[in-house]
């Protein structure tokens, strides 16, 4: 096994490197150099890092009380609530932003309520809006990851704590804080990197040119100045930050597997006081308000029109599902060998896509592939491939810790039985990784559904993905159809996520 696995892991990592670093190199080669950042670029860098750091910090800070409340409370609908929490993360940005504005915008529900009490309307635009949107999008991810950490504290530990008469403060000190210290840095870094490449959110809610991110500067270099060298330089800057942050994160620790049992009921004896009940109810309630109200707004706006959608939209929906299934298969094919192969270089390579500019990847691939084949004929494989690679960091987050656990628990037994190669994969690795695999597959499928990505340069003239069709509807002023298409998109993303995630759990004994 080792040699073949190492080969496959190396192959997968090389492939990812080709798509991230290789495409950048192709752009630099074409530009004939990369230039040096100017004053405006440094300003963009400062804002980018600032908003990403704030977003990461706030997402994690808000996620901790929510995760704790979810870990120690049982209530009807808890499972569905946890699943729904994932929605903002997988929505196309424009839909998420519209939903958010329906609640927090100038004429949103919140200002409607405040207005009724004679309070001046709050403005959501500017740095605070960018951060709010990023928290909206990333809080669910943080909650799920941290919740996993909580559930990984063995129930016996809480029993012992109860026997020793620990108060909430003691429990926080002896059980929760050590867990958080282990889990939080990795999560914060992941969210930081996601926000680093923010483009549409930062621009739409940023309120003006103060809110210029590096990704916008890349866009400007490409489209406004046709300056490939500058675009490449900015993209390299992003990758350097990513690599540095990822290396830092690797020195801190990885979060535990977040695909594993969400419903493991550890009983808590520490949560009976009325005050803690109130705090938990508030945490869950506020999270529901922040995350579910905008979704409800999106659904309310679009649901009535779903069954009147033109045929072309349904065809796009089918096409998107096909692309997303292909992306899912590819993502697992890349993620499994990297997760099983381990090694720091592999892991950092697996993180690179987080900080990769979609525009640079698209352009680089275009430069690499065009001499070989017509871009339009490559639309499907390229879209699926790029979506798969973009989802890779999240797949690895789910798979690596779980793969380690399997090795720790069963490697000796498997070795003593001579269980190797495909048989080991089939009878040990895959069944034990079923849950994280299901979760990773679901996440990839859903993210791929919602991605507008690199399609522009590889657009297939005969078929459009659903997100592209949604944009086309909006460009054709058909906002109602677009709202309905958004609901369809959300429903399909969810269905795919749910099917894979469930599939990973059924029959997963002990």
């Amino acid at each position: 096994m080792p040699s073949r696995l190492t080969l496959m892991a190396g192959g997968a990592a090389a492939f990812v490197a080709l798509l991230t670093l290789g495409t950048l190199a192709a752009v630099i080669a074409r530009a004939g150099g990369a230039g040096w950042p100017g004053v405006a670029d440094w300003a963009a860098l400062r804002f980018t890092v600032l908003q990403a750091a704030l977003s990461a910090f706030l997402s994690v800070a808000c996620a901790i009380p929510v995760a704790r409340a979810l870990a120690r409370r049982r209530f009807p609908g808890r499972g569905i609530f946890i699943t729904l929490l994932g929605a903002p993360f997988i929505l196309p940005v424009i839909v998420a932003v519209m939903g958010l504005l329906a609640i927090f915008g100038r004429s949103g529900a919140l200002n409607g309520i405040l207005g009724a009490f004679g309070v001046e309307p709050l403005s959501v635009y500017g740095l605070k809006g960018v951060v709010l949107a990023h928290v909206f999008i990333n809080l669910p991810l943080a909650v799920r990851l941290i919740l996993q950490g909580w559930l990984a504290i063995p129930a016996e530990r809480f029993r012992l704590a109860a026997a020793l008469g620990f108060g909430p403060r003691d429990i926080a000190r002896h059980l929760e804080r050590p867990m958080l210290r282990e889990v939080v840095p990795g999560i914060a870094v992941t969210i930081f990197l996601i926000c680093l490449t923010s483009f549409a959110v930062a621009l739409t809610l940023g309120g003006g040119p103060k809110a210029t991110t590096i990704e916008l500067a890349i866009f400007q270099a490409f489209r406004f100045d046709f300056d490939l060298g500058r675009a490449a330089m900015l993209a390299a800057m992003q990758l350097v930050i990513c690599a540095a942050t990822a290396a830092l994160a690797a020195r801190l620790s990885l979060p535990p597997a977040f695909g594993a049992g969400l419903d493991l009921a550890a009983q808590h004896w520490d949560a009976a006081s009325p005050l803690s009940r109130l705090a938990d109810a508030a945490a869950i309630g506020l999270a529901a308000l922040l995350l579910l109200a905008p979704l409800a707004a999106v659904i309310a706006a679009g649901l009535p029109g779903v069954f009147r959608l033109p045929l072309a939209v349904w065809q796009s929906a089918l096409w998107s599902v096909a692309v997303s299934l292909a992306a899912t298969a590819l993502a697992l094919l890349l993620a499994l060998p990297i997760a099983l192969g381990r090694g720091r270089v592999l892991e950092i390579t697996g993180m690179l896509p987080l900080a990769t500019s979609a525009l640079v990847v698209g352009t680089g691939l275009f430069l690499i592939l065009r001499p070989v084949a017509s871009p339009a004929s490559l639309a499907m494989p390229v879209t699926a491939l790029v979506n798969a690679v973009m989802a890779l960091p999240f797949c690895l987050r789910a798979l690596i810790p779980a793969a380690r656990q399997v090795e720790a628990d069963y490697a000796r037994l498997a070795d003593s039985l001579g269980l190797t190669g495909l048989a080991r994969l089939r009878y040990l690795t895959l069944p034990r990784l079923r849950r994280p695999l299901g979760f990773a597959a679901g996440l990839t499928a859903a993210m791929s559904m919602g991605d507008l990505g690199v399609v522009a340069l590889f657009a297939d003239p005969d078929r459009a993905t659903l997100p592209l069709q949604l944009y086309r509807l909006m460009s054709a002023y058909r906002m109602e159809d677009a709202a309905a298409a958004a609901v369809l998109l959300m429903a399909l993303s969810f269905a795919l996520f749910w099917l894979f995630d469930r599939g990973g759990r059924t029959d997963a004994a002990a």
Partner: protein
Amino acid sequence: MLQLENVTVTQDDFRLAADLTIREGARVAVIGPSGAGKSTLLSVIAGFYPPASGRVLWQDRDLTDLPPGDRPLSILFQDQNLFPHLTVAENVGLGIRSDLRLSPEDRGRVAEALERVGLSGMGDRRPGTLSGGQQSRVALARVLLRARPLMLLDEPFDALGPALRAEMLDLVAEIAGAMGATVLMVSHNPADALRIAPETILLADGRAHPPRGTAELLENPPPALAAYLGK
């Protein structure tokens, strides 16, 4: 014949030396204070831990560089002896073919082995639904089918009660007798050793002493063993 030829094991500041021979078909207990390296010794024989020097031989064949699965032995650990996601029959079937491509005949042998350990009809259950004693029986059924000439037991029955443990030891003795297997069993219970192991290897002072008669050893324990036994 199992030979440990000038074997030394080092792990940080832990050291263990072994130079001994166990004849074929013997049933040998491994006894010693905790931390003496009982499990480590078994790990070296099973191939999970490489010796710093020396060789491990079975019937004059050098095992030292073989991977665990290729060695002529079966090993049972303290826990994690079964895969929780596979059925009882699949867990046992791994003893025949690790790719689980079992012929009808193989399946018959699995059923037979289960019957032999008293688990007829339990093949479709998952380990999680069985009691501790039953789980041990499943693992023994697999040992039976693997039919390797050497059997290493690293306190697999320790979590069981005294009566059940005695029952398991008898089953081990019976199976080993039927297969003609050589048994090496870590134990910290003199009664267990006396029950099935006529000979005992004592681990003390960084050395694995060659096997001696169990009864005689327990009658006249050397000082290190006496301290361990509380005599």
